[in-house]
Each structure stands twice: as structure tokens, then as C-alpha cells.
């Protein structure tokens, strides 16, 4: 028995962050990754009769997003990671334990809420505006090295914060970077 379009859409909406993050990691442009997710949704709806289980939709959409992202990366002449590395990365993206992903995304939102204003703005310049460290440095009148170091600290702080949230370990009340 095949899945109804409603079910396919529900699965994809629930997994939006996971699919988009898979594409973003390859194409390094969150807006292009969002476009890829939307294209994957359209394509999935056109192939509804191929899906028998929700897990199948997730696996298919992750693979489709990855291939679209690799194609776009090639067109943009970006260096891409080797296929075997993408396979290893996909192996865990593909983990059907969706609840864990939802928890992780919620934990990340909570951690981001704790970021200082300048740290949030740095992330926005980096990922929302898609600016390179040099461009951010010019805009904020700082050195590129300082921007790299700050971004690096924010990434590490957020990863650590998410891990604490996931394991419910006590930690500092704020992430200040």
C-alpha cells in the first residue's frame, strides 16, 4: 500500500531541518538548501506511489537532497567532499530515530536563545546573509582572524550546549561568546 500525499508532506515537514541541513552541508548556502528542500517536496509528491513506509520517504528525500546539492555544488564549482565521506555522513542523517533529531533541533533553539546579541548577529551574517569571514570582517571593522576565532568559539559553545541539553547535564546559564 502506498502513502497518501498528506502523509508524505507530514513526514517531510517533520524532517525539514534534517533534509535542509543535509543539503546545506554540501552546497554551503542555506537558502539554496531551502530551495532544494522545496524541490524535493515537489518531487516526492510526484512520486507518492513509490513510497510504502514513512522511513522510505525520509531515506529517499535525504538521498535526493544530497544529489541535488552535489549537482548545484558542481555547477557553482565548489570543492565537494568525496562520495565515501558523504555516504558516512548520510548514514547517520538517515537514522530513522527522528525524535532524537527533533530533540536536538529544539535543544539547539534553546541554546541559540542564550547567545549574546553580537554572537547571534555573527551567525546571521554568516548563514543568513551568506557572508564570508573576510566580508564580515570588513563590515564589522575587525580582522578576519578575529571573525574566524569568534565563529569557531560559537560553534563549539553551541555544540557543547546541545550535548548538555541532550544529556540533561547541568551547565552554565548562558553562552557568551
Amino acid at each position, binding site marked *: 500500500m502506498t502513502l497518501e500525499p498528506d502523509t508524505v508532506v507530514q513526514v517531510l515537514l517533520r524532517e525539514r531541518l534534517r533534509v535542509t541541513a543535509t543539503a546545506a552541508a554540501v552546497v554551503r548556502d*542555506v537558502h539554496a538548501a*531551502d530551495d532544494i528542500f522545496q524541490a524535493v517536496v515537489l518531487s516526492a509528491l510526484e512520486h507518492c506511489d513509490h513510497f510504502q513506509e514513512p522511513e522510505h520517504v525520509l531515506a529517499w528525500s535525504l538521498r535526493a537532497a544530497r544529489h541535488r546539492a552535489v549537482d548545484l555544488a558542481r555547477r557553482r564549482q565548489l570543492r565537494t567532499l568525496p562520495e565515501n565521506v558523504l555516504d*558516512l555522513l548520510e548514514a547517520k542523517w538517515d537514522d530513522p530515530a527522528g525524535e532524537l533529531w527533533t530533540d536536538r533541533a529544539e535543544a539547539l533553539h534553546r541554546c541559540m536563545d542564550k547567545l549574546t546579541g553580537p554572537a547571534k548577529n555573527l551567525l546571521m551574517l554568516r548563514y543568513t546573509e551568506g557572508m564570508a569571514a573576510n566580508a564580515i570582517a570588513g563590515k564589522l571593522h575587525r580582522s578576519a582572524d578575529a571573525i574566524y576565532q569568534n565563529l*569557531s568559539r560559537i560553534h563549539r559553545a553551541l555544540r557543547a550546549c546541545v550535548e548538555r541539553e541532550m544529556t540533561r547535564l547541568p551547565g552554565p546559564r548562558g553562552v557568551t561568546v
Partner: protein
Amino acid sequence: MIPPTSESRFDELYLRYWENGLSDAETAEFAGILERDPLARDWFRANGLLAVTAADLPAGGPVPQPLPEKRGWSRRRILQYLGGGLAAGIAAGFAGRNYLTGSKLSPVQLRAAKGGVTVTTASGRPHPPEGPIPDDATVITHGTNSSAVLVFPNGSDVLLAGDSSVALSGDNNRRLKLMRGSAIADVLPLKFGERAFSFLTTEALVSAVGGVRLTLTHTARTTEVGVHTGEVAVTDPSGGPLDSVRSGELFVVSADGRQSKQPLPGTPENYALDLKKSLPDGWFVGTKQTQLSGPVVRPELWFDPYHQAEMYQIRSHNRWAEGLVRLLDDSIITVKYRVRSSGKGQVCLVSRTESMKEAATGVLEWNGTYRAGGWQTLSVRAADMLECREAPKFRSPWVMFLFIFNTYGSDLGLEVADFRVSRPGGGI
């Protein structure tokens, strides 16, 4: 025992990976870390999630930033497709983004968009691919059969060939940065005081003062400037003089600084893929391998946007401006190949008309069976490759600018040892 990865080194590489700023050696190092260290792979996934979540952050904080500008057409298509409650669900999924446009329009017009063409503002917002385009817009043609023409107020125009990307900037948007692909520009003589046109790539800055027709092709590491009429000055991107290129000359400059100038070649009637050398710059899909029997090209699995499916393919570089070979009805296409197991496949010759400024394209196809049993030679006349849906709607000569070997979803173990096009009696 493998030492644990330094988290700071991982972040350093990741941040520059995101900017496509890693060298070959650093890319290999980064791939190696991800391959051997599961913790590094967790960090990588966490950073991907962080990036897409950060893009959803509401504006705020001490440095005010504009909201992200987003492309809306595909979202609208989904909403149209779904309607009702599900559409609301999707819309909720994308809530928090600003889809409205509002950039200042320039007097530059985009015309004759064919195939997949996108226009985005300087901040990445979508704009319709027809009519006036915004200041500092980026125009991208997606796919080999797509194209678009930029028309400037003084009548000058620039044809953007398939799989190309150009960003406009400067006074009157007359500085065009070609990120990839080919552009064919007809620049009309300038009036007194009128701003000159310039064309920028990572290797060269080409300035056209008087009337000129030029072709500009930018691949991963090379820029080619062909001047058909008029004269241009070429400098390096920072303004250091390189050369001047006159009518009938082709100037080539590489990322490593090597440069050459030669008479502008016409498209030949014979062609052979030279596997004794590296695959040409800009080679798209497929890898060269050297075996006991000699060098071969093998397909790679990739997502074919035309078929909307993963396929094993070899795709050459795209040579829209110069063309790879001029095909006539009696041209003979010869392929020496072998496969591990027999199966369905095709050879596609993607072609344009003799005028590089005409957007019409078509594909000559051999559709048949790759046969197992050692080395095989496939030989077919160009005129016998027209029984297909995408066949050219224009008569020969067809200027082939790209070729494809396809075995669809099956890995037949295809190896191509020779690919050539020749005229009867004029073999190479």
C-alpha cells in the same frame, strides 16, 4: 591508534570549507578527518543543523541586519500544488522569512530567457527572469540548454550561454563578473562620456572601450577571451596589465598566471578526445583512469536534472563559445569502449547553430546497447542520430559544444578509450 581530531582544527577547516576556501591538501585533510573520526562527523552534522537553524533566527541585537531575502517561486508552487490545510502547514514551516522583493531596478533588461534562468538580487532574493533586472543582480542559466540575453540601454547586449553565472555591478551595471560559463558580448561604440563595459573573472579583467564582439569563457582555472571584432585590454583582476587582444585573437590566462595568445580558431570538423593529457579544464562528470591497456574515462553516478534521476554518466566540458566540433550530416562519430555487462545506453552530442549568439540547441543521440565482450567500436553517422525527441530543429552544420555518455541507472562498467568525430576521408 588514530589520534583524536583537534576540535579547533576541525572548526578551522570547517569554516573555510563553508567558504570553499580549502586547498586541495586541506580538502584531503578534512575528508580524512571525517572519514576516520565519527566524532568529527557528529560535529559536521551539528554544524549543518546550526547553519539552517541560524538562518531562521529573528533579526535583532546591536548590529541591525536586513531580514533574509528568500526565493519564493518554488514555495508558491508547493502551495498551489497542495492547497488548503497542508499548504498552511508548509507555510508555517517557512514562517519567519521575507519573500518580498523591492530592489531598485536598473535599465538593464533580461530577454529571451530559455530553459532554467534565475535572477537574484545582491542579497539573494529572487526576481522574475524577464524585463528590467535589479541593480547588482546575478543571472544564472541552469542546464546546458538554457540561455538568456542582457540588453543594455545603449543597445549593447550579452548572451549568457547554458550553465553560466554572471553578476552585474558598477556604474550602470556595466561591470559583469562571470563566475562560470560563457558570455558572448556585442558592445556598441560608446558615446562621449559613456561608461565603458568591463568583464571580470578570477583571472582577468577585460575592458571594452570601443565597439567589440567578444567571447568570454571561464572554467575552474582558466579564462579565455576571444575577440571577433574590435579590441579589448586585458589586465589581471587587480589592474596589472596583461595584454591587449585584437580582432581574430584568442587570449588564454590560467589561475597560475600562464598566458597565451593565438589566432582565434574556427570550430574544426574533426575532433578527438586526447586521453594522453589530463581531462580538459571544466570537465563535468566522469574520471580518467590509466589501465594496462591505456587511459580510459569512466562514468560517475550523478543526478541528471533532465531525467530527474541518478545515472551513470560521462559529461564533457562545455565549450559553447568555441564549439568542440562542427558536425555535418556525413560526420562519423566513433567510440572505442568496453563494458562489464551489456546494457542500454546512449551517446549524446549537445549542439548549437553556427551562430554562437543564437540560443537554439539540440541533441544528436545514439540510443542503443553497449555490448560486453572486450573492446568494441561504435561508429555512427551524425545524420543517423536525429531520431530523438531533443533532435536539433535546425539544419547542419551543428556545432557540438558538449558530449555525454549515459548508461542510465545501471553501472555497466563502461570505459571509453577513444572518442572522435571525423569527416569521410579526413580522419584524425
